Protein backbone atom coordinates (compact mmCIF):
# COMPACT_ATOMS: atom_id res chain seq x y z
CA UNK A 1 0.00 0.00 0.00
CA UNK A 2 1.29 3.44 -0.85
CA UNK A 3 1.99 5.89 1.96
CA UNK A 4 -0.64 8.63 2.21
CA UNK A 5 1.39 11.86 2.05
CA UNK A 6 -1.15 13.68 4.24
CA UNK A 7 -1.55 11.08 6.97
CA UNK A 8 0.06 13.30 9.60
CA UNK A 9 -2.70 15.87 9.18
CA UNK A 10 -5.35 13.29 10.06
CA UNK A 11 -4.19 12.23 13.53
CA UNK A 12 -2.15 13.40 16.51
CA UNK A 13 1.61 13.11 16.03
CA UNK A 14 3.77 10.89 18.22
CA UNK A 15 5.03 13.92 20.14
CA UNK A 16 1.48 15.22 20.62
CA UNK A 17 0.35 11.85 21.97
CA UNK A 18 3.30 11.80 24.41
CA UNK A 19 2.33 15.27 25.62
CA UNK A 20 -1.36 14.40 25.86
CA UNK A 21 -0.70 11.33 28.04
CA UNK A 22 1.91 12.45 30.59
CA UNK A 23 1.10 9.44 32.80
CA UNK A 24 1.99 6.94 30.06
CA UNK A 25 5.62 6.02 29.52
CA UNK A 26 6.98 7.80 26.43
CA UNK A 27 9.11 4.71 25.84
CA UNK A 28 5.97 2.61 25.43
CA UNK A 29 4.31 5.19 23.19
CA UNK A 30 7.39 5.22 20.93
CA UNK A 31 7.42 1.41 20.89
CA UNK A 32 3.73 1.30 20.03
CA UNK A 33 4.13 3.68 17.12
CA UNK A 34 7.21 1.85 15.84
CA UNK A 35 5.28 -1.43 15.88
CA UNK A 36 2.32 0.25 14.19
CA UNK A 37 4.31 2.04 11.46
CA UNK A 38 7.48 -0.05 11.22
CA UNK A 39 11.01 1.34 11.15
CA UNK A 40 13.49 2.04 8.40
CA UNK A 41 17.27 2.31 8.76
CA UNK A 42 19.61 4.91 7.30
CA UNK A 43 22.96 3.85 5.85
CA UNK A 44 24.65 5.26 8.97
CA UNK A 45 22.43 3.11 11.20
CA UNK A 46 23.08 0.03 9.08
CA UNK A 47 26.83 0.64 9.29
CA UNK A 48 26.53 0.07 13.06
CA UNK A 49 25.26 -3.48 12.52
CA UNK A 50 27.82 -6.16 13.26
CA UNK A 51 26.56 -9.48 11.91
CA UNK A 52 28.86 -11.25 14.36
CA UNK A 53 27.08 -9.58 17.27
CA UNK A 54 23.61 -8.57 16.20
CA UNK A 55 20.56 -10.59 15.27
CA UNK A 56 19.77 -10.09 11.62
CA UNK A 57 18.37 -13.45 10.53
CA UNK A 58 15.28 -15.25 11.75
CA UNK A 59 13.02 -18.06 10.72
CA UNK A 60 9.66 -18.02 12.41
CA UNK A 61 6.21 -19.08 11.29
CA UNK A 62 5.34 -15.46 10.52
CA UNK A 63 8.64 -13.94 9.40
CA UNK A 64 11.43 -15.27 7.23
CA UNK A 65 14.67 -13.29 7.04
CA UNK A 66 17.73 -14.92 5.64
CA UNK A 67 21.16 -13.31 5.81
CA UNK A 68 21.65 -13.16 2.05
CA UNK A 69 18.92 -10.56 1.66
CA UNK A 70 19.32 -7.97 4.33
CA UNK A 71 21.62 -7.08 7.19
CA UNK A 72 19.25 -4.75 8.97
CA UNK A 73 18.77 -5.49 12.68
CA UNK A 74 15.95 -7.86 13.45
CA UNK A 75 14.57 -5.67 16.24
CA UNK A 76 15.38 -3.00 18.80
CA UNK A 77 15.74 -2.45 22.53
CA UNK A 78 15.15 0.85 24.30
CA UNK A 79 17.13 2.19 27.27
CA UNK A 80 14.58 0.90 29.76
CA UNK A 81 14.80 -2.68 28.42
CA UNK A 82 11.62 -2.38 26.35
CA UNK A 83 11.69 -4.40 23.15
CA UNK A 84 10.40 -3.02 19.88
CA UNK A 85 9.45 -5.92 17.68
CA UNK A 86 9.48 -4.45 14.24
CA UNK A 87 11.56 -4.18 11.16
CA UNK A 88 11.63 -2.73 7.71
CA UNK A 89 9.89 -5.75 6.21
CA UNK A 90 7.23 -6.43 8.83
CA UNK A 91 4.83 -3.57 8.21
CA UNK A 92 3.13 -2.28 5.11
CA UNK A 93 1.15 0.79 5.95
CA UNK A 94 -0.17 4.02 4.65
CA UNK A 95 1.92 5.96 7.18
CA UNK A 96 5.63 6.34 6.68
CA UNK A 97 7.84 4.43 9.12
CA UNK A 98 9.95 5.77 11.99
CA UNK A 99 13.61 6.06 11.10
CA UNK A 100 16.69 4.71 12.88
CA UNK A 101 19.74 6.89 12.33
CA UNK A 102 23.00 7.86 14.03
CA UNK A 103 22.82 11.19 15.86
CA UNK A 104 25.77 12.52 17.91
CA UNK A 105 27.36 9.09 17.69
CA UNK A 106 24.31 7.38 19.23
CA UNK A 107 21.84 5.16 17.41
CA UNK A 108 18.53 6.96 17.72
CA UNK A 109 14.94 6.44 16.61
CA UNK A 110 13.46 9.48 14.87
CA UNK A 111 10.05 10.66 13.79
CA UNK A 112 9.77 13.28 11.09
CA UNK A 113 13.47 14.05 11.47
CA UNK A 114 13.32 14.56 15.24
CA UNK A 115 15.40 12.24 17.46
CA UNK A 116 13.21 10.58 20.09
CA UNK A 117 15.21 7.96 21.96
CA UNK A 118 18.41 5.96 21.87
CA UNK A 119 17.99 2.39 20.62
CA UNK A 120 20.12 -0.73 20.73
CA UNK A 121 20.13 -3.64 18.29
CA UNK A 122 19.17 -7.08 19.59
CA UNK A 123 22.19 -9.30 20.08
CA UNK A 124 22.05 -12.76 18.59
CA UNK A 125 22.40 -15.75 20.88
CA UNK A 126 25.43 -18.05 20.60
CA UNK A 127 23.36 -20.92 19.17
CA UNK A 128 22.61 -18.92 15.99
CA UNK A 129 26.06 -19.80 14.66
CA UNK A 130 25.77 -23.53 15.45
CA UNK A 131 24.42 -26.44 13.44
CA UNK A 132 22.33 -29.46 14.42
CA UNK A 133 23.79 -32.95 13.94
CA UNK A 134 21.58 -33.18 10.84
CA UNK A 135 23.48 -30.19 9.42
CA UNK A 136 20.80 -27.48 9.75
CA UNK A 137 21.62 -23.98 11.03
CA UNK A 138 20.12 -23.77 14.50
CA UNK A 139 18.46 -20.44 13.68
CA UNK A 140 16.25 -22.42 11.30
CA UNK A 141 15.08 -24.45 14.30
CA UNK A 142 14.53 -21.80 16.96
CA UNK A 143 14.66 -18.05 17.02
CA UNK A 144 15.36 -15.72 19.85
CA UNK A 145 14.02 -12.68 21.59
CA UNK A 146 16.42 -10.95 23.98
CA UNK A 147 15.52 -13.36 26.82
CA UNK A 148 13.39 -16.03 25.18
CA UNK A 149 13.87 -19.14 23.02
CA UNK A 150 11.08 -19.29 20.44
CA UNK A 151 9.98 -22.55 18.87
CA UNK A 152 7.52 -22.67 15.99
CA UNK A 153 7.26 -26.41 15.30
CA UNK A 154 4.50 -26.07 12.69
CA UNK A 155 5.28 -23.39 10.12
CA UNK A 156 1.91 -23.65 8.42
CA UNK A 157 -1.69 -23.61 9.66
CA UNK A 158 -4.43 -26.05 8.74
CA UNK A 159 -7.08 -23.34 8.69
CA UNK A 160 -5.63 -22.28 5.34
CA UNK A 161 -6.49 -25.67 3.85
CA UNK A 162 -10.18 -24.75 3.83
CA UNK A 163 -10.83 -21.82 1.48
CA UNK A 164 -11.79 -18.74 3.45
CA UNK A 165 -10.82 -20.15 6.86
CA UNK A 166 -7.47 -18.37 7.39
CA UNK A 167 -7.42 -15.40 9.77
CA UNK A 168 -7.61 -12.25 7.68
CA UNK A 169 -4.63 -10.39 9.23
CA UNK A 170 -2.35 -13.46 9.21
CA UNK A 171 0.63 -13.91 6.89
CA UNK A 172 1.58 -17.47 7.85
CA UNK A 173 0.40 -18.96 4.56
CA UNK A 174 2.15 -16.32 2.45
CA UNK A 175 5.36 -16.64 4.48
CA UNK A 176 5.30 -20.42 4.21
CA UNK A 177 4.61 -20.50 0.49
CA UNK A 178 7.33 -17.94 -0.28
CA UNK A 179 10.05 -20.04 1.31
CA UNK A 180 11.32 -23.56 0.77
CA UNK A 181 11.16 -24.44 4.47
CA UNK A 182 9.70 -27.69 5.71
CA UNK A 183 6.32 -27.51 7.42
CA UNK A 184 7.33 -29.32 10.60
CA UNK A 185 10.51 -28.72 12.56
CA UNK A 186 12.22 -31.96 13.51
CA UNK A 187 12.00 -32.94 17.19
CA UNK A 188 15.63 -34.05 17.41
CA UNK A 189 16.74 -30.71 15.89
CA UNK A 190 14.64 -28.87 18.47
CA UNK A 191 16.10 -30.93 21.28
CA UNK A 192 19.67 -30.21 20.17
CA UNK A 193 19.03 -26.52 19.58
CA UNK A 194 17.40 -25.87 22.94
CA UNK A 195 20.17 -27.83 24.66
CA UNK A 196 22.75 -25.67 22.89
CA UNK A 197 20.86 -22.45 23.72
CA UNK A 198 20.88 -23.32 27.42
CA UNK A 199 24.69 -23.35 27.38
CA UNK A 200 24.68 -19.55 27.34
CA UNK A 201 24.37 -18.44 30.97
CA UNK A 202 22.23 -15.38 31.58
CA UNK A 203 20.74 -15.31 28.12
CA UNK A 204 17.32 -16.92 28.40
CA UNK A 205 14.51 -16.70 30.95
CA UNK A 206 11.85 -18.73 29.15
CA UNK A 207 10.95 -21.14 26.40
CA UNK A 208 8.07 -20.30 24.14
CA UNK A 209 6.15 -22.47 21.71
CA UNK A 210 3.63 -21.57 19.10
CA UNK A 211 2.77 -22.52 15.56
CA UNK A 212 -0.04 -23.03 13.16
CA UNK A 213 -3.16 -24.94 14.14
CA UNK A 214 -3.34 -28.70 13.55
CA UNK A 215 -6.95 -29.79 13.55
CA UNK A 216 -6.38 -33.54 13.19
CA UNK A 217 -6.81 -36.22 15.83
CA UNK A 218 -9.43 -38.37 17.47
CA UNK A 219 -10.70 -35.27 19.17
CA UNK A 220 -10.29 -31.99 17.30
CA UNK A 221 -6.72 -30.65 17.89
CA UNK A 222 -5.35 -33.86 19.46
CA UNK A 223 -2.50 -33.85 16.95
CA UNK A 224 -1.50 -30.30 17.89
CA UNK A 225 -1.63 -31.20 21.59
CA UNK A 226 0.50 -34.27 20.97
CA UNK A 227 3.07 -32.26 19.03
CA UNK A 228 3.52 -29.79 21.90
CA UNK A 229 3.63 -32.54 24.54
CA UNK A 230 6.42 -34.33 22.68
CA UNK A 231 8.47 -31.14 22.41
CA UNK A 232 7.87 -30.03 26.01
CA UNK A 233 8.83 -33.49 27.27
CA UNK A 234 12.09 -33.49 25.29
CA UNK A 235 12.95 -29.93 26.21
CA UNK A 236 11.93 -30.62 29.81
CA UNK A 237 14.67 -33.24 30.18
CA UNK A 238 17.12 -30.35 30.47
CA UNK A 239 15.39 -29.36 33.72
CA UNK A 240 15.17 -32.77 35.37
CA UNK A 241 11.41 -32.96 34.98
CA UNK A 242 10.74 -29.78 36.97
CA UNK A 243 8.32 -27.09 35.82
CA UNK A 244 10.25 -24.52 33.81
CA UNK A 245 9.42 -20.93 32.79
CA UNK A 246 7.55 -21.50 29.56
CA UNK A 247 4.56 -20.40 27.53
CA UNK A 248 2.54 -22.18 24.91
CA UNK A 249 0.31 -20.28 22.54
CA UNK A 250 -1.90 -22.98 21.13
CA UNK A 251 -5.33 -23.24 19.65
CA UNK A 252 -8.06 -23.30 22.32
CA UNK A 253 -7.78 -26.85 23.71
CA UNK A 254 -10.52 -28.55 25.69
CA UNK A 255 -10.19 -29.20 29.43
CA UNK A 256 -9.03 -32.77 28.98
CA UNK A 257 -6.32 -31.71 26.53
CA UNK A 258 -5.19 -28.88 28.80
CA UNK A 259 -4.99 -31.20 31.79
CA UNK A 260 -2.93 -33.65 29.77
CA UNK A 261 -0.44 -30.96 28.80
CA UNK A 262 -0.18 -29.79 32.41
CA UNK A 263 0.20 -33.29 33.82
CA UNK A 264 2.65 -34.65 31.26
CA UNK A 265 4.97 -31.66 30.80
CA UNK A 266 6.69 -28.88 32.73
CA UNK A 267 4.72 -26.11 30.97
CA UNK A 268 3.96 -23.16 33.27
CA UNK A 269 1.62 -20.94 31.27
CA UNK A 270 -0.90 -21.17 28.47
CA UNK A 271 -2.31 -18.77 25.93
CA UNK A 272 -5.03 -19.22 23.32
CA UNK A 273 -5.33 -16.09 21.20
CA UNK A 274 -8.92 -14.98 20.70
CA UNK A 275 -7.52 -12.17 18.50
CA UNK A 276 -10.61 -9.94 18.44
CA UNK A 277 -12.96 -9.38 21.38
CA UNK A 278 -16.30 -9.33 19.65
CA UNK A 279 -18.27 -12.34 18.46
CA UNK A 280 -19.46 -11.05 15.09
CA UNK A 281 -16.04 -9.68 14.23
CA UNK A 282 -14.37 -12.89 15.39
CA UNK A 283 -16.64 -14.82 13.01
CA UNK A 284 -15.66 -12.50 10.16
CA UNK A 285 -11.94 -12.11 10.85
CA UNK A 286 -11.11 -15.59 12.19
CA UNK A 287 -13.57 -17.77 10.24
CA UNK A 288 -11.62 -21.00 10.79
CA UNK A 289 -11.53 -20.55 14.55
CA UNK A 290 -15.19 -19.58 14.52
CA UNK A 291 -16.24 -22.62 12.47
CA UNK A 292 -14.25 -25.20 14.41
CA UNK A 293 -14.45 -23.88 17.96
CA UNK A 294 -16.60 -20.76 18.17
CA UNK A 295 -16.27 -17.56 20.14
CA UNK A 296 -18.11 -18.54 23.33
CA UNK A 297 -16.43 -21.93 23.45
CA UNK A 298 -13.03 -20.24 22.97
CA UNK A 299 -13.72 -18.10 26.02
CA UNK A 300 -14.97 -21.08 28.04
CA UNK A 301 -11.81 -22.97 27.23
CA UNK A 302 -9.72 -20.05 28.47
CA UNK A 303 -11.66 -20.09 31.74
CA UNK A 304 -11.07 -23.82 32.05
CA UNK A 305 -7.37 -23.24 31.45
CA UNK A 306 -7.31 -21.02 34.56
CA UNK A 307 -8.52 -24.03 36.56
CA UNK A 308 -5.59 -26.02 35.20
CA UNK A 309 -2.69 -23.54 35.06
CA UNK A 310 -3.81 -21.06 37.72
CA UNK A 311 -4.63 -17.38 37.84
CA UNK A 312 -1.91 -15.26 36.23
CA UNK A 313 -0.78 -18.14 34.05
CA UNK A 314 -3.43 -17.95 31.33
CA UNK A 315 -3.96 -15.15 28.88
CA UNK A 316 -5.24 -14.42 25.41
CA UNK A 317 -3.73 -12.30 22.67
CA UNK A 318 -5.49 -9.65 20.62
CA UNK A 319 -4.48 -8.36 17.21
CA UNK A 320 -5.38 -4.93 18.46
CA UNK A 321 -6.89 -2.74 15.82
CA UNK A 322 -8.39 -5.40 13.55
CA UNK A 323 -11.70 -4.72 15.26
CA UNK A 324 -11.74 -1.52 13.18
CA UNK A 325 -11.07 -3.20 9.84
CA UNK A 326 -13.47 -2.22 7.09
CA UNK A 327 -16.19 -2.83 6.18
CA UNK A 328 -17.50 -4.80 9.16
CA UNK A 329 -15.40 -3.39 12.01
CA UNK A 330 -16.38 -0.72 14.52
CA UNK A 331 -16.88 2.68 12.93
CA UNK A 332 -15.36 4.87 15.63
CA UNK A 333 -12.36 4.42 17.90
CA UNK A 334 -14.47 5.40 20.91
CA UNK A 335 -17.06 2.70 20.29
CA UNK A 336 -14.35 0.17 19.56
CA UNK A 337 -12.44 0.83 22.79
CA UNK A 338 -15.63 0.67 24.85
CA UNK A 339 -16.72 -2.65 23.38
CA UNK A 340 -13.28 -4.30 23.49
CA UNK A 341 -12.54 -3.28 27.07
CA UNK A 342 -16.00 -4.44 28.18
CA UNK A 343 -15.23 -7.92 26.83
CA UNK A 344 -11.71 -7.82 28.27
CA UNK A 345 -13.23 -7.09 31.67
CA UNK A 346 -15.37 -10.19 31.44
CA UNK A 347 -12.24 -12.24 30.74
CA UNK A 348 -10.42 -10.58 33.65
CA UNK A 349 -13.29 -11.45 36.01
CA UNK A 350 -12.55 -15.08 35.16
CA UNK A 351 -8.80 -14.64 35.74
CA UNK A 352 -7.84 -14.37 32.06
CA UNK A 353 -5.67 -11.47 31.02
CA UNK A 354 -6.07 -9.97 27.55
CA UNK A 355 -2.80 -8.76 26.01
CA UNK A 356 -2.60 -6.71 22.83
CA UNK A 357 -0.26 -6.96 19.89
CA UNK A 358 -0.20 -3.83 17.77
CA UNK A 359 -1.76 -4.80 14.46
CA UNK A 360 0.62 -4.05 11.67
CA UNK A 361 -0.68 -4.63 8.23
CA UNK A 362 1.34 -7.67 7.25
CA UNK A 363 2.37 -7.98 3.63
CA UNK A 364 0.76 -11.14 2.29
CA UNK A 365 -2.26 -11.06 4.60
CA UNK A 366 -5.82 -10.66 3.36
CA UNK A 367 -6.04 -7.37 5.25
CA UNK A 368 -3.00 -5.93 3.48
CA UNK A 369 -4.97 -2.92 2.24
CA UNK A 370 -6.44 -2.00 5.62
CA UNK A 371 -5.52 0.96 7.80
CA UNK A 372 -4.60 0.55 11.43
CA UNK A 373 -6.14 2.89 14.07
CA UNK A 374 -4.48 5.99 15.47
CA UNK A 375 -1.62 5.90 17.96
CA UNK A 376 -3.92 7.43 20.55
CA UNK A 377 -6.25 4.45 20.18
CA UNK A 378 -3.44 2.08 21.11
CA UNK A 379 -2.39 4.20 24.07
CA UNK A 380 -5.94 4.20 25.45
CA UNK A 381 -6.24 0.46 24.88
CA UNK A 382 -2.93 -0.27 26.65
CA UNK A 383 -4.00 1.85 29.60
CA UNK A 384 -7.34 0.07 29.72
CA UNK A 385 -5.91 -3.45 29.64
CA UNK A 386 -3.29 -2.60 32.26
CA UNK A 387 -5.98 -1.07 34.48
CA UNK A 388 -8.09 -4.23 34.24
CA UNK A 389 -5.17 -6.38 35.39
CA UNK A 390 -4.68 -4.07 38.37
CA UNK A 391 -8.41 -4.04 39.18
CA UNK A 392 -8.66 -7.83 39.16
CA UNK A 393 -5.18 -8.46 40.65
CA UNK A 394 -3.85 -10.56 37.77
CA UNK A 395 -0.08 -10.45 37.43
CA UNK A 396 1.46 -10.75 34.00
CA UNK A 397 4.84 -12.34 34.74
CA UNK A 398 4.17 -14.93 32.01
CA UNK A 399 3.98 -12.36 29.22
CA UNK A 400 5.86 -9.32 30.47
CA UNK A 401 8.52 -7.15 28.86
CA UNK A 402 11.24 -9.74 29.47
CA UNK A 403 9.46 -12.86 28.33
CA UNK A 404 7.60 -11.52 25.32
CA UNK A 405 8.08 -7.81 24.76
CA UNK A 406 5.37 -7.59 22.13
CA UNK A 407 2.59 -6.07 24.27
CA UNK A 408 2.62 -2.36 25.14
CA UNK A 409 -0.05 -2.97 27.80
CA UNK A 410 2.08 -5.50 29.68
CA UNK A 411 5.03 -3.07 29.46
CA UNK A 412 2.88 -0.64 31.45
CA UNK A 413 2.48 -3.28 34.17
CA UNK A 414 6.19 -2.94 35.06
CA UNK A 415 5.57 -0.24 37.66
Amino acid at each position, binding site marked *: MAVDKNWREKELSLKEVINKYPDVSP*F*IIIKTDAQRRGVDYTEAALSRVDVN*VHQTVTRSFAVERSDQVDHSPFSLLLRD*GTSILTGRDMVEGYRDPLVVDVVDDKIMILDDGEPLEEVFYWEKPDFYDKFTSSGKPMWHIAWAR*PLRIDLNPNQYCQFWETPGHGCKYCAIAATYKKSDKEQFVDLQDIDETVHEALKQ*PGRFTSIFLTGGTILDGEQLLDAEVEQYIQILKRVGRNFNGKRFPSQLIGTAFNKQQLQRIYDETGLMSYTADIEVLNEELFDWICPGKAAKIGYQEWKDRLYQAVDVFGRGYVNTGLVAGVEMATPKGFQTEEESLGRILEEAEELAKHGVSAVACVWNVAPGSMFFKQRTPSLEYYVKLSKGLDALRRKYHIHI*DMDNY*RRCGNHPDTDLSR*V
Partner: protein
Amino acid sequence: MAVEISRELQEILNDPQSIKVLATTDPEGRPHVVFKGSLHVNEDGYLEYLEFIESSQTNKNMVHSIWFHKTVAINVKHEKQSFQIEAVPYRALIAGKEFEKRYNQVRREKGIDLSTVWLMEPLEIVEETFEKRRLEEEKAHPILKHLDLLVEQEKINEK
Protein backbone atom coordinates in the same frame (compact mmCIF):
# COMPACT_ATOMS: atom_id res chain seq x y z
CA MET B 1 23.59 17.02 32.34
CA ALA B 2 25.88 14.45 33.91
CA VAL B 3 28.65 15.62 36.27
CA GLU B 4 32.02 13.97 36.67
CA ILE B 5 32.67 11.76 39.69
CA SER B 6 35.98 12.71 41.32
CA ARG B 7 38.70 10.10 41.71
CA GLU B 8 38.29 10.26 45.50
CA LEU B 9 34.56 9.57 45.31
CA GLN B 10 35.10 6.81 42.75
CA GLU B 11 37.41 5.08 45.19
CA ILE B 12 34.87 5.43 47.98
CA LEU B 13 32.04 4.14 45.77
CA ASN B 14 34.11 1.20 44.61
CA ASP B 15 35.24 0.24 48.12
CA PRO B 16 33.23 -2.78 49.33
CA GLN B 17 33.54 -1.45 52.90
CA SER B 18 31.53 1.69 52.04
CA ILE B 19 27.84 1.81 52.93
CA LYS B 20 25.69 2.72 49.93
CA VAL B 21 22.05 3.71 50.07
CA LEU B 22 19.63 4.25 47.17
CA ALA B 23 16.43 6.26 47.61
CA THR B 24 13.71 6.10 44.96
CA THR B 25 10.07 7.15 44.76
CA ASP B 26 7.02 5.46 43.31
CA PRO B 27 4.53 7.17 40.95
CA GLU B 28 2.65 8.63 43.97
CA GLY B 29 5.89 10.04 45.40
CA ARG B 30 6.20 7.53 48.26
CA PRO B 31 9.88 7.17 49.16
CA HIS B 32 11.69 3.85 49.33
CA VAL B 33 15.24 3.44 50.65
CA VAL B 34 17.50 0.41 50.38
CA PHE B 35 21.15 -0.52 50.88
CA LYS B 36 22.83 -1.39 47.59
CA GLY B 37 26.19 -2.99 48.24
CA SER B 38 26.73 -3.59 44.52
CA LEU B 39 26.64 0.13 43.70
CA HIS B 40 29.87 1.29 42.06
CA VAL B 41 31.26 3.38 39.23
CA ASN B 42 31.78 1.31 36.08
CA GLU B 43 34.45 1.68 33.39
CA ASP B 44 32.25 4.07 31.40
CA GLY B 45 31.72 6.39 34.36
CA TYR B 46 28.12 5.38 35.05
CA LEU B 47 26.87 4.58 38.53
CA GLU B 48 25.90 0.95 38.32
CA TYR B 49 24.02 -1.37 40.66
CA LEU B 50 22.78 -4.90 40.31
CA GLU B 51 19.09 -5.61 40.82
CA PHE B 52 18.56 -9.20 41.89
CA ILE B 53 14.79 -9.06 42.47
CA GLU B 54 12.74 -8.36 39.37
CA SER B 55 9.53 -7.34 41.13
CA SER B 56 11.18 -5.32 43.93
CA GLN B 57 9.84 -1.86 44.74
CA THR B 58 13.22 -0.36 43.88
CA ASN B 59 13.16 -1.97 40.44
CA LYS B 60 9.64 -0.66 39.81
CA ASN B 61 10.61 2.81 41.00
CA MET B 62 13.70 2.78 38.81
CA VAL B 63 11.52 1.98 35.80
CA HIS B 64 9.24 4.84 36.72
CA SER B 65 12.30 7.12 37.05
CA ILE B 66 13.75 6.21 33.66
CA TRP B 67 10.34 6.59 32.01
CA PHE B 68 9.64 10.05 33.36
CA HIS B 69 13.16 11.36 33.99
CA LYS B 70 12.66 11.43 37.78
CA THR B 71 15.80 11.55 39.83
CA VAL B 72 16.94 9.17 42.58
CA ALA B 73 19.25 9.87 45.52
CA ILE B 74 22.31 7.91 46.57
CA ASN B 75 24.29 8.28 49.74
CA VAL B 76 27.65 6.65 50.24
CA LYS B 77 29.44 6.61 53.61
CA HIS B 78 33.04 5.61 54.16
CA GLU B 79 34.49 5.99 57.64
CA LYS B 80 33.58 9.60 58.48
CA GLN B 81 33.14 10.76 54.91
CA SER B 82 29.76 10.84 53.20
CA PHE B 83 28.49 12.01 49.82
CA GLN B 84 25.02 12.48 48.40
CA ILE B 85 24.52 11.98 44.66
CA GLU B 86 21.43 12.94 42.73
CA ALA B 87 21.23 10.69 39.69
CA VAL B 88 18.91 9.70 36.88
CA PRO B 89 18.65 6.16 35.48
CA TYR B 90 20.25 5.93 32.05
CA ARG B 91 19.74 2.29 31.16
CA ALA B 92 18.25 -0.97 32.38
CA LEU B 93 20.55 -3.62 30.96
CA ILE B 94 18.63 -6.90 30.82
CA ALA B 95 20.22 -8.82 27.96
CA GLY B 96 23.32 -9.06 25.80
CA LYS B 97 27.00 -9.76 26.39
CA GLU B 98 27.49 -6.89 28.85
CA PHE B 99 24.62 -8.17 30.96
CA GLU B 100 25.93 -11.73 30.73
CA LYS B 101 29.33 -10.63 32.01
CA ARG B 102 27.70 -9.29 35.20
CA TYR B 103 25.41 -12.32 35.40
CA ASN B 104 28.35 -14.72 35.33
CA GLN B 105 30.11 -12.71 38.01
CA VAL B 106 27.01 -12.84 40.23
CA ARG B 107 26.66 -16.57 39.66
CA ARG B 108 30.31 -17.09 40.65
CA GLU B 109 30.29 -14.83 43.68
CA LYS B 110 26.77 -15.19 45.06
CA GLY B 111 25.20 -18.13 43.23
CA ILE B 112 21.91 -16.25 42.65
CA ASP B 113 19.95 -14.87 39.70
CA LEU B 114 20.33 -11.37 38.29
CA SER B 115 17.41 -9.35 36.91
CA THR B 116 18.81 -6.03 35.77
CA VAL B 117 22.02 -4.02 35.65
CA TRP B 118 20.98 -0.43 36.26
CA LEU B 119 23.19 2.35 34.92
CA MET B 120 22.72 5.88 36.27
CA GLU B 121 24.10 9.29 35.38
CA PRO B 122 25.12 11.53 38.29
CA LEU B 123 23.54 14.97 38.05
CA GLU B 124 24.74 16.57 41.28
CA ILE B 125 27.21 15.56 43.99
CA VAL B 126 27.28 17.11 47.47
CA GLU B 127 29.71 16.14 50.20
CA GLU B 128 27.71 15.42 53.35
CA THR B 129 30.61 14.54 55.66
CA PHE B 130 29.32 15.72 59.04
CA GLU B 131 32.32 17.77 60.16
CA LYS B 132 32.55 19.49 56.80
CA ARG B 133 28.83 20.27 56.77
CA ARG B 134 28.97 21.56 60.38
CA LEU B 135 31.75 24.01 59.58
CA GLU B 136 29.97 25.14 56.43
CA GLU B 137 26.81 25.74 58.44
CA GLU B 138 28.64 27.83 61.03
CA LYS B 139 30.14 29.97 58.34
CA ALA B 140 27.04 30.41 56.24
CA HIS B 141 24.46 30.74 59.04
CA PRO B 142 26.20 32.16 62.14
CA ILE B 143 22.87 33.20 63.64
CA LEU B 144 21.57 29.62 63.83
CA LYS B 145 22.88 28.36 67.18
CA HIS B 146 22.16 28.08 70.89
CA LEU B 147 23.38 31.06 72.89
CA ASP B 148 24.96 29.05 75.65
CA LEU B 149 27.47 27.71 73.13
CA LEU B 150 28.87 31.25 72.85
CA VAL B 151 29.55 31.95 76.54
CA GLU B 152 32.22 30.53 78.75
CA GLN B 153 30.33 28.18 81.06
CA GLU B 154 32.68 28.78 83.99
CA LYS B 155 31.90 32.50 83.99
CA ILE B 156 28.16 31.86 84.01
CA ASN B 157 28.43 29.38 86.81
CA GLU B 158 30.51 31.80 88.93
CA LYS B 159 27.66 34.29 89.25
